[in-house]
């Protein structure tokens, strides 16, 4: 078997592999900064003082994985069924189902909380096109 224009083909292949794998070796050895969530807002500290621990409406693991689905269900419940109180299945405490008046009351640090993971995962939820985020000091400008 003879490879016609073998030189060109092999060089071409090498160039292609080089370009295709460029992102991998470009990022090699770089430490990707893992998202770091800050849960030390005044409201959360207050909660910790009162109840002795930090807790969200559900467990940390659940919130991490399912908060989008939870918010979706909250929205339907509030807008369509007129039920605005959420009873936690983990602690039994009652919370207001509201992004602006619920979640962000404790997590008043959107930049240090929401944005950390959303930027890391390159997801752009459009929650804050409408929902007003709390005022924050400009700390890390992007």
């Amino acid at each position, binding site marked *: 078997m003879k490879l016609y224009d073998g030189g060109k083909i092999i060089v071409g292949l090498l160039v292609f592999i080089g370009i295709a794998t460029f992102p991998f070796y470009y990022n090699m050895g770089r430490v990707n900064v893992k998202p770091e969530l800050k849960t030390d807002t005044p409201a959360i500290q207050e909660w910790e003082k009162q109840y002795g621990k930090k807790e969200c409406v559900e467990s940390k693991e659940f919130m991490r994985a399912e908060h989008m689905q939870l918010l979706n269900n909250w929205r339907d419940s509030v807008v369509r069924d*007129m039920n605005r109180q959420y009873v936690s299945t983990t602690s039994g405490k009652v919370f207001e189902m509201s992004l602006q*008046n619920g979640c962000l009351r404790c997590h008043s640090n959107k930049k240090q909380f929401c944005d950390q993971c959303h930027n890391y995962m390159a997801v752009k939820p459009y929650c804050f*096109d409408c929902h007003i985020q709390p005022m924050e000091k400009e700390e890390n400008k992007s």
Partner: protein
Amino acid sequence: MSLDRRQFLKIAGISSILGFGASVASATHTIWEKGLEPPQVEPNKDALNGKRWAMVVDMSKFKTEEDIKKITSACHQTHNVPDFRNPDGTVDRKFEIKWIWEEPYERTFPGSENKFMGENIKDMPFIVLCNHCDNPPCVRVCPTGATFKLANGITMQDMHRCIGCRFCMAACPYGSRSFNWVDPRKAINLVTENKAYPTRTKGVVEKCTFCTERLQAGKIPACVEAAPKGAMFFGDIEDQNSEVRKIVATQLTIRRKPELGTGPAVYYLIGGSDHA
């Protein structure tokens, strides 16, 4: 490749078993897609509950422009309704968003004007808002179910679902709906905005919600609260003892375009006598 009948049935059988298995697996995985279960949710204990919310507006109690301005700005302030202005300070009609506003008589009750009508009525600015119809055309035309009727009669809108097709605007005979042609935040005062209520985004339709969020917190609508004494009433018209029911039962009230069969829930008193 050719299949005989036996092979075909085998493949069909196996793939249907696989498909069924996958659907069972996904059903057990996504408990959250079914929505919240009853023990997880409860209504606010302070919430005002009604079978059919309705409003009575007594136009004779609005003496000055100021009285009207007070209620429209109370509403628009509460709900972060943008205020688009032309460079010369007049309202920019192209981008205007309105939840509650004023219209002259012939646009409020078209067809019922006559040439001998006094100027006091003809030129009187009428307060108009979404009528929260019994049979709302906007709900019928909405392709995504974004706008719908709540159990208490309010025509509600889920902004998350709205795709901005504006069918509802074409359907509404009262012009109660406005479209966000541009980002409304451009025309919202970021200092005085209501931090407890969202804004809207570019490309959605919005309208009065009879202050659903305030009712659920035990408060009456913002416009009624800001109105002069005895000018606006809000209540459950199915409740025989409610103020709105008593007024509608004892006085002559008119509604906007009732001949269309939409069943509006906003009643107007035009005369000047005292009541309720």
